[in-house]
């Protein structure tokens, strides 16, 4: 049956019963709405996407028969909606809407529609405002069913899952300061504003902290600058001093105002204190000074559904940054400047797969250095500025995969349901000017992450770092500087073992006091930084382990507590015995944002 005919039939079916679909239970048997999930799973589990689509086509031809009472029609349309969501059809929500319309008293279908926007859809985040519309409506229906004495056993499961969906939806927001959107939510919270406070604290000693993650690249650049300053190769002692693990304390506190018509507006205040983190002068690595950063900012975030085109995430922010300790020779020099940041993402389904394109543009409008006690030098030596641009493509494959049954000690293929195979590639251009030097760090990366064969996630990524340094020569011309140029290849493998699988508790997890266990992952990262060209004395390998624990603050209005703690052993093997590093870090997040 073609789509137009089907829609006509649907319309006729709906109009024919429009008068009876407005109030009271839908005519027909009272159905457990989870039969929709069961039927959809039965028609999709262990299937290729082509097979699921074939099942979908059968269910659409016709969507229901004339003799079906409304409650059965609604269930059948819900199954179609679930299957459409599974194969990535953009009109899945229309079928959820039809199911809701035909059985308007049943909150289960609102839950499933809310889960669709809160789970399958979205770009780098759920379509939160659309999801909460359905979830609060489900709460309203549940309350009415209680009043009318028609609250069935399965409705308690619907209620629990609505609460879980809202917990997950607001998990990043932090501790609610206003009651209306706090856990456990009630239907009255829908149009009320949410105000919440999130706080994050990270303490670490790690070679990679604060260096964009590429310690090899950053330390190699510093070694190059040592050569520029001193005109000789750094000694083993110099390299030992460069490879440092400052004690770093990062805090970030954000006040988030959320309203379903507005999206989320954040006011933030953050600090960074890193002891002896900066080389006071690149020519003498043993001389180090602290770095301190304070920043206040305002940001806006919202995912906007623009289907049938795509979902668009808007994330815009501006910060005022005050930093001290990052200007060579001037450890006490303070700089204040604005940072403008945009992180848009668009995402859409390609059949059952999902393509997400994310961009980042960060403009750091750093003023020329003007500090007391600085040497009187040419003005261009005081020039500062930094621009970061990037693009990331992620292609997520959600169909079951034929994977070798490694867990059974066999290479036989076995159709394995996964939480997604994510293929990603990207490019980042970090263009920084400091005085007479400019370094353009280009990062190319490509990788794959397989989530969910059993209790494991496996991620593999190759990252190619290319640093191209220039210097202003005496004639004022920008010349290539090989001392601060080079290329590095990082190979990284991360295996994650899910000790507590969040999927196993689709409802609200049982609580210990005010907390409910959300998920617990045991992570094993492994990486190898190989210098392909340029100075290679800071190559290293690294292996470690970490725990990531997510706890729902069910007794704290629903705020999520995220704890990560890890240890990594790094070995800069060209340094011999001086190259061993033990990196540790712990981060506590109540609610969270990117740190």
């Amino acid at each position, binding site marked *: 049956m073609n789509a137009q005919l089907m829609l006509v039939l649907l319309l006729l079916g709906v109009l024919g019963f429009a008068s009876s679909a407005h109030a009271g239970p839908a005519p027909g048997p009272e159905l457990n709405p*989870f039969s929709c999930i069961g039927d959809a799973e039965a*028609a999709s589990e262990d299937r290729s996407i082509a097979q699921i689509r074939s099942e979908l086509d059968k269910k659409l031809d016709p969507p229901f028969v004339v003799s079906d009472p409304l409650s059965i029609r609604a269930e059948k349309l819900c199954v179609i909606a679930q299957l459409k969501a599974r194969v990535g059809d953009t009109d899945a929500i229309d079928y959820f809407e039809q199911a809701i319309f035909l059985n308007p008293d049943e909150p289960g279908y609102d839950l499933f529609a809310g889960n669709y926007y809160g789970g399958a859809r979205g770009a780098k985040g759920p379509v939160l405002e659309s999801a909460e519309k359905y979830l609060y409506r489900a709460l309203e229906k549940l309350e009415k069913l209680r009043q009318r004495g028609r609250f069935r056993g399965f409705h308690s499961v619907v209620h629990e899952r609505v609460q879980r969906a809202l917990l997950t939806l607001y998990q990043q927001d932090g501790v609610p300061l206003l009651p209306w959107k706090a856990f456990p939510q009630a239907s009255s919270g829908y149009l009320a504003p949410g105000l919440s406070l999130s706080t994050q604290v990270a303490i670490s000693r790690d070679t990679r902290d604060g260096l964009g993650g590429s310690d090899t690249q950053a330390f190699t650049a510093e070694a190059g600058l040592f050569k520029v300053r001193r005109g000789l190769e750094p000694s083993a002692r110099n390299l030992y001093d460069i490879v440092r693990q400052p004690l770093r304390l990062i805090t970030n506190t954000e006040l988030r105002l959320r309203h379903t018509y507005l999206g989320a507006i954040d006011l933030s205040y953050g600090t960074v204190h890193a002891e002896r983190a900066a080389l006071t002068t690149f020519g003498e690595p043993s001389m180090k000074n602290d770095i301190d950063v304070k920043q206040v900012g305002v940001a806006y975030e919202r995912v906007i559904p623009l289907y049938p085109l795509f979902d668009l995430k808007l994330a815009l922010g501006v910060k005022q940054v005050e930093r001290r300790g990052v200007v060579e020779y001037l450890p006490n020099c303070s700089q204040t400047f604005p940072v403008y940041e945009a992180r848009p993402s668009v995402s859409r389904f390609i059949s059952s797969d999902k393509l997400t394109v994310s961009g980042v543009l960060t403009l750091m409008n750093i003023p020329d250095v003007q500090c007391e006690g600085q040497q009187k030098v040419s003005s261009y030596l005081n020039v500062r500025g930094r621009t970061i641009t990037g693009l990331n493509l992620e292609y997520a494959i959600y169909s079951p995969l034929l994977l070798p049954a*490694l867990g*059974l000690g066999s290479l036989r293929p076995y159709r394995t349901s996964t939480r997604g195979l994510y293929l990603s590639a990207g490019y980042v251009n970090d263009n920084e000017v400091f005085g007479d030097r400019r370094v353009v760090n280009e990062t190319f990366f490509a990788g794959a992450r397989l989530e969910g064969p059993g209790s494991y996630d496996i991620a593999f990524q190759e990252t190619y770092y290319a640093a191209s340094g220039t210097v202003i020569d005496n004639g004022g011309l920008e010349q290539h500087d090989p001392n601060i140029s080079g290329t590095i290849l990082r190979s990284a493998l991360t295996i994650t073992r899910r000790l507590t699988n969040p999927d196993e508790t689709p409802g609200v997890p049982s609580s210990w006091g005010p907390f409910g266990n959300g998920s617990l992952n045991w992570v094993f990262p492994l990486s190898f930084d190989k210098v392909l060209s340029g100075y290679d004395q800071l190559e290293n390998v690294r292996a470690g382990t970490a725990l990531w624990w997510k706890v729902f603050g069910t007794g704290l209005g629903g705020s999520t507590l995220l704890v990560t703690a890890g240890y990594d052993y790094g070995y800069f093997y060209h340094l011999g015995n001086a190259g061993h590093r033990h990196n540790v870090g712990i981060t506590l997040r109540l609610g969270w944002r990117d740190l």
Partner: protein
Amino acid sequence: MSHLGFRFRFLLACVVVSGALSCAPGALEPRTSPSAPAASISQRLGSGYYLTQPPADLELPGNSQKQPVVPKVTADFQGPATSNDWWSSLIWQNDSNGKNPYSEAMYAHPLTFRAEAAGLGLGYPTLPEVRSDQYMYYHAKEVLVGLQGLAASATRVASYSDWVVTASWRDGASELRATIGHGLPFVYLTRTGTAPALIAPQHGTSQHAPFEVQVWHQGGDWLGFSVAGHEYAVFGPSGSEWQASGDCFTSDLAGKSYFSLAVLPDQSAATVALFRAHAYAFVTGSEVSWRYDAPAATLHSTFQVSTELKEAGHGHVNQALLALYRHQWLNTKAPLRSESYLSPRGQMKLLEGSSFETELAFNGVLPILPNVAQSDRDDLEFYIKQLYYQPDLFPKGPGEKPERDTYWVGKSLLKVANALQIADQIGYESAKDQLLQALKNQLEDWFDGRAPSAFYYDKNWRSLIGVPAGFFSGLQLNDHHFHYGYYTFAAAIVAKYDAAWAKRWAPNVELLIKDAANWERSDQRFPFLRYMDAYAGHSWANGPAQFAEGNNEESASEDVNFSAGAVLWGALTGNRAIRDMGIFLYTQQVSAMEQYWWDIDGQVFPKRFEHAAVAMVWGAGARHDTWWSHDPIFVHGINFMPATGGALFMGRHPEYVRRNYAEIVTENRAEPLTWRDVTWMYLALADPNRALELYEKDRYFKPEFGNSNAMTYHWLENLAALGQLDTSVRADTPTYAVFHKGKRRTHIAFNPGGQALEVHFSDGATLNVPARQTAMLR
């Protein structure tokens, strides 16, 4: 690096990673028994315990509002209360549609009933309501029988027997008692007090067009009338008169206390004379008994009603008239009359007499098929590992609120039991030992009387409820026979390997069997054969029988699975009473299932109901639908599971298997992918090569929850080697099967005993089978 070199290194890396990630579980230790539960809340039994106080979160047998319910019986009621019968709404007040202390519709066949304050409404529905997904012969009140002025506050059960029940209406000094039952064309009524007997033919009903009432005999002690074309006769004591009173008839019964009403096949004088002769032989009880003739592999069942002749002379005989269901009259040598009735189970033929015997062939059960095909060991080992390496062999079930209840754990028990036998067949010792120990530990966990997995004995309803309950196995006592069938089958497989374990835990296993089907009438802890309706030939799944359609049973194949488990357990433990009860249940259920779920002869489903099978049988009819989905694969497949050595009966009629499977493909508009293992295993009973071909096209699927890839592959491969079930040959041991592939016949026998056994087949073949082993002759 050369391409070949890279591939080699990649493969090597994969093998290394595979070896690192793969991890056979460490040897499972026997379970250490926990400390005994407190005596105040538990009862010791054998090596285990069961709870006598309900855990806090257990839903006890209750009504639709989940308020506890106790049996609704008279003061003189004796014996254990029961449930899950065709008449259970009399004893279990569920209040599904508001307060109703009388009953819901009860489908005795050929008569249907519904109790009310004024007496007993009855009817004889012969016009089915046929839809695409069901046919129903709904009860419609054609006659009300009672006492004049009767307004009872409730209808209570005064007594019951195997398929007959006596209900009581009390109103002050007056009491009416009515005895009704399967196959009884009569209602037998007695009164206490002097209120006149009342017969009220019904002219109208809110549900149907007005009935046409014609009185075709009045005068003297009997009354003849027709309602909606159905003929009724009422017989009073000699000397009594039936007086017209408005639309009703009353009689003082000439001062006596009894009268009877019958639905007649017709109103001919001969028929009236026949019924009149039997009208005073009041049925007072019903009893089934059985005898297994092992040499002939034939189960003999005797269905007997006891009668009390209320009035001798006048040609009255102390003998009942019985209407036999199709599965009964097909298998009896009793002389049947030409008169018959229509019912949702097809034609019911009339027998003049108080008893009859049926004979049913028993084609045997096996613990599992032998590995005749000698399938690829690596394949089977790989599939066994899929189970063996699982960290949790008894996971929670699916659904919106997953639980480790007795149904889902039961299914896992059987899955493990099948897999361990396959592991044993291929010599995969570590897996066999591990899975066997896992079975023992899991069963013992249930038998220790401690949370979270335990059994609670409810003394009100004399039933053993698994905790946690599933599918309302507590609130409505639903499905225990399904659930415990899996436990019984799995326990039998443990017994196959460890007789000492079986001896130690026999009281606990047998308590489960007794809950579903108590074979000892003297054991008052449980009603006799609670779930099995011996006359109907199958069980009823619902406790209160709370529906307008009466009671129901969906997965009859799981009903048979219980019976097969009982046969194996009885055979392996030397308990002949349990074994023979299992054979009785099995043969009755198979013959009923073939007729009423599958209609293999095309004689049961009414015209315009165009299906090869139904998923559910109801008192009023049958439904081509399941409780949870309309998916045609579920509708058919729910009666294909579980596939075990006890499920070979499904292949008794290969042509029907093909027809049934073809309907699945038609309704599904494609070969099935949902439950593909279940449907292929069914198809393999008729066309194993086709099933294997479908399987080979795509092996990479997840089997149904209670099934495994190991069992699927083993079943398909071996049936492809064995061919079809050969029902023409029988053996003198119950644990056997015979197959034929073309002209090649394979005789298989399992020896459950501790000594070698010589098994004789009816075609002259003989097999010597070592103790606890399976042997075959090809």
